């Protein structure tokens, strides 16, 4: 690895095992190849892991990164049998629509609530939940600003 300073900017160059030098932190793929990008959340029990809940919705906010899909997986009670996935196209999200003050009437649209917080149903029952964000394809970048999980308490089993 070498720290490089060229044209006023710093770079990290790394050598590989196929005779090439790679510039890191460049582009959205690894020299043309895809890489798996996975975020796995902590286990959320909402303060009481003994209480059953209904996980109703996921609200999240993300950056517009293109027309590919982000896979969102829910895992309940650490039980792989409960695992369910939905997808969300990354071309929506924050920045997809013009904001007031910059819009041209008749051309642009006002920012909708959905551009800030996307609202998806979870509808799973359990004591705790984990969220997994994942992509596996080439150039499938994503950036999540925040997310919220909504839950209703049920009873202790």
């Amino acid at each position: 690895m070498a720290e490089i300073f060229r044209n006023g900017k710093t770079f990290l160059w790394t050598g590989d095992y196929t005779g090439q030098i790679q510039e890191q932190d460049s582009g959205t793929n690894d020299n043309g190849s895809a890489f798996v990008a996975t975020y796995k959340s902590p286990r959320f029990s909402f303060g009481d892991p003994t209480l059953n809940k209904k996980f109703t919705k996921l609200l999240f906010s993300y950056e517009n990164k293109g027309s590919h899909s982000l896979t969102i997986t829910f895992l309940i009670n650490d039980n792989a049998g409960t695992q369910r996935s939905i997808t969300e196209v990354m071309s929506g999200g924050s920045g997809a629509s013009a904001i007031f003050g910059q819009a041209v009437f008749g051309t642009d649209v006002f920012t909708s609530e959905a551009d800030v917080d996307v609202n998806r149903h979870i509808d799973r029952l359990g004591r705790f939940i984990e969220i997994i964000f994942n992509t596996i394809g080439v150039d499938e970048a994503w950036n999540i600003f925040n997310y919220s999980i909504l839950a209703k308490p049920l009873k202790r089993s």
Partner: protein
Amino acid sequence: MSTPRNNIPFQRVDNFRGVNAKDSQENLVSGEWQKDSINIISDPQGSIGTRKGFSPITTATVGTAVAWCGFYQFTLSTGVSRFIGGTSDGKLYEYASSAYALLKTGMGTPDDDDRYTFHQLNDICIVTDGVNKPSKCTSTGSAATLAGTTITADFGLEAWRYSWLHPTADPRTLFYCNTLGDAESGYESFINFDEDPYSVTGACRQGDDMIVGKPFSLFRLRYTGTADLFAKYRIPSKVGPVNFQVMKETPSGQVLFLAGDFNVYMLAGESVISVGENIQPVLREGKNTRLNKAVSGMLYDRSWYWISYTDTSNSTTNDQSVVMDYSRPYQDKWGKLQYP
């Protein structure tokens, strides 16, 4: 009385922090993520997303089965840079005009695990390969053997206008060139680090000092300008770097290094602080016997300290990297300092 419905607040997660690979799931706070997460970065603005990729600086290659084992930007006094690197087949190349030009052969073992180090004094770049006497590159042309009475060294660095070499024959010492500013004046003077039986594993500048590391100790070397030229003292610590390549000075003057306990430490002034406990289990799950083959680099515009190491048990290459953002300290749930 029954529990009122709709009484659980939203679980909102933002201000993402870092990976936490400590002992159990319950020890993660909401801003952290599980160690199964991969190829994601947290942004200082409070988001999490895919890391960027990498791209070759040129489509040219020095051989599809050849590994690069060290690379260096050799900046001349004219301001012109030469980009020089060593390879696993024992060759030294220069990168220029989107191509690699051969400068020297017969270096290294040769092997993927060869490590070339580079440092410069005036317009001479000194190259060590751990096997041969040091080589040199000057302002133009091919590489040659360094002149003067030299020693075989596995790493070298510049400090106070002296060239320093770590000899393979006497690894508890550091030799420095005889004459200030002249890397070819011979290497006959040395500083001894024989307080314990362990070899010197690495060295790094910290401001105007040099930090010298052994597996279980750190030393600070200072230039006095009089006899004795250098003053050495022990930094209170019982830890040191696994090798020369993992010691890096940050822009704000701390020294980061990976130690033999799979942890990352930060030397801030005289304080040695453990800062990698959140990632330590990940490194420990790698191929332990190759920890001393790890290499590191700094990506300054992102404040990243980058460690490449061997993860897969049957691998003989560095096949995984972990990255630490040294600009964003945070406290874990026990109040310990960590970095994303």
